[in-house]
């Protein structure tokens, strides 16, 4: 597959604030997500790709052609806006037809194209409505096909599901993936919702404070985050702060002050150098942990911590535990409710428990 959209060393400041600080990525024909908290620069990056903001520095190219300075109307890129941005005075039909009308295409072709796209999102019967007569989900789908009908090389989506409630959001997320497969257009999707990105995207770029921290497939970001921020932002995790006191091959021995010593590994994605004496974060995913009242007998290759159960939350498929460690930190884990006669079912509030997990599931991450 070949490169479709590439941004190199993008920088954009607003006054004293550097919104985007040296961002580079290259996208092929895929569903690409820009994921980050608000203020991370993801929307500004998207707006520069759309041509709605000009970068201070850096280049944007579409299929190898430099488009950095081109205005939005000249780019073969279309955008789905966060608040839909439908034209309130035009019918659904005219909204969808807007892009084609600008290209001076004959009326018959426009009509058949618009109908085809309305059918794709099952809104043919709403063609003569005005935007204000549509529900949020319907508006969103119209905004989507209004952009898609122009057959752009890249479709940019700015938190397109942000304003909708959970049920519609989940349904539209699946629709989006299906539609992308039908139209075969590269999607760049901006979101702050990590679960949305994990469900939809082929690859995700995690952004924070104007920089891209890591780009990878969802599984890679989850299993091998390259820093504490990524491991914390994607999924849930337990973070313990400590200092490296020994290195043994791939393994690092980490001292967690007031608690214990743990063995862990640095993910291959993390390139920052860690040496004895470094202050680091240890990240332990809740599902990697085995919790029990009695300490396991066979413990080689495992880290062990003990703590006191502070909360037991039954949520149907699983039971979640909030455990208070000796040093006062919280630790979250859960068990799946596979067999109710299991001994962990006896774990109650204020019980002392042991947490076991493997060294290679203990991620040592630079601060």
């Amino acid at each position, binding site marked *: 597959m070949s490169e479709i959209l590439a941004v190199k060393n993008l920088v954009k400041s607003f006054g004293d604030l550097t919104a985007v600080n040296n961002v580079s990525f290259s996208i092929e024909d895929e569903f690409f997500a820009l994921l980050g908290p608000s203020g991370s620069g993801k929307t500004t990056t998207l707006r520069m790709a759309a041509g709605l903001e000009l970068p201070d520095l850096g280049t944007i190219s579409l299929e190898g052609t430099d488009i950095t300075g081109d205005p939005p109307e000249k780019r073969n890129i279309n955008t789905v806006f966060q608040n839909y*941005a439908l034209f309130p005075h035009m019918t659904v039909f005219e909204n969808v037809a807007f892009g084609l009308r600008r290209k001076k295409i004959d009326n018959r072709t426009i009509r058949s194209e618009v109908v085809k796209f309305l059918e794709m999102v099952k809104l043919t019967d709403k063609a003569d409505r005005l935007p204000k007569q549509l529900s949020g989900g319907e508006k969103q789908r119209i905004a989507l096909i209004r952009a898609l009908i122009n057959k752009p090389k890249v479709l940019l989506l700015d938190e397109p599901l942000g304003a909708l409630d959970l049920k519609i959001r989940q349904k539209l997320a699946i629709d989006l993936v299906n539609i992308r497969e039908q139209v075969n257009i590269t999607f760049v999707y901006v979101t702050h919702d990590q679960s949305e990105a994990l469900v939809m995207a082929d690859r995700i770029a995690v952004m924070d404070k104007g920089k891209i921290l890591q780009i990878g497939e969802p599984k890679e970001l989850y299993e091998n985050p390259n820093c504490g921020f990524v491991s914390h932002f994607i999924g849930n995790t337990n973070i313990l702060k400590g200092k490296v006191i020994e290195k043994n091959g791939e393994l690092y021995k980490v001292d967690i002050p007031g608690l214990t010593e743990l063995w862990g590994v640095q993910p291959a994605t993390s390139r920052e150098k860690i040496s004895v004496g470094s202050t680091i974060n240890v990240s332990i995913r809740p599902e990697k942990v085995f919790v029990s009242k009695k300490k396991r007998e066979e413990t080689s290759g495992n880290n062990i911590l003990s703590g006191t159960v502070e909360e037991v939350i039954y949520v149907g498929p699983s039971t979640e535990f909030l455990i208070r460690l000796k040093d006062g930190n919280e630790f979250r884990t859960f068990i799946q409710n596979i067999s109710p006669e299991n001994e962990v079912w006896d774990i109650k509030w204020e019980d002392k428990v042991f947490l076991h997990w493997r060294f290679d599931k203990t991620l040592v991450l630079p601060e």
Partner: protein
Amino acid sequence: MLNVMPSFVYLLLLFYIPMVLLLVISFWNSGFMSLEPAFTFDNYRKFFQNPNYLKILWNTLIVTSGSMALLFVIGYPIGYYLGRMVKRYGSLILFLMIIPVEIGFLVRIYAWKIILSKTGIISSFLVHIGLLKEPARIFLYSRTAIILVLIHEWLPYVVIPVTIALKGIDPSTIEAARDLGASGFTIFRKIIFPLSIPGLFAAFVLIFIPMLGEFAIPTIVGGSSNYMLGNIINNQFMAAGNWGFGSAIGVILLSASVLLIALVIKISGLEKLL
């Protein structure tokens, strides 16, 4: 029910009853200082059969629609500037526009009479730079003077609603239009202008009806050959003592306004936006 009672009573006493009275009286037998209940179209016949009155009706429509058109042509760019281009001081400029409105309208009209008169500032200036040989009235006692003063009186009422309508356009709508391939004038024609129509309509309603009934401006700066319907109505009630005839002209004026507003709503496609 109880909540709307006070406003209903208010409207009933001050608007609906007088309006119905106006309509009823317009069908009564009426002459100088006399008024008897009847059902006759005499008052209306009198109006439509007299070419002088029809000329005045025509004059009224020309002056008001001409002023309205000029108000839009002058006011829209100002509203566009204030609503879409000015970043700071926009409210200050609006405020400065509103201040003259607060001056009593008679004072303002007389001020214009002085400005346009033989000894006024324009005449003196033109003599001074040699464009006029001797002092002369500038447009005073003409249709042009009426239109000039009407525009001065009503301009803020165009600028303010247009500014507000343009400010209310979601910037992302314009970004979306650009994103979909529209540029420059197409954006104005397809997005900005249609979305500012409610502002123009508000201006039209605010201005057009009072302008149709205007009588002070034509009296003071228009001269006797440029009477408007408002003058005739005023005369019938205040001088000629013919209330029935005055009412009939009032009804004609009111019907014309309602028809025009309905027409404007229809043409501008406004029902979609409201």
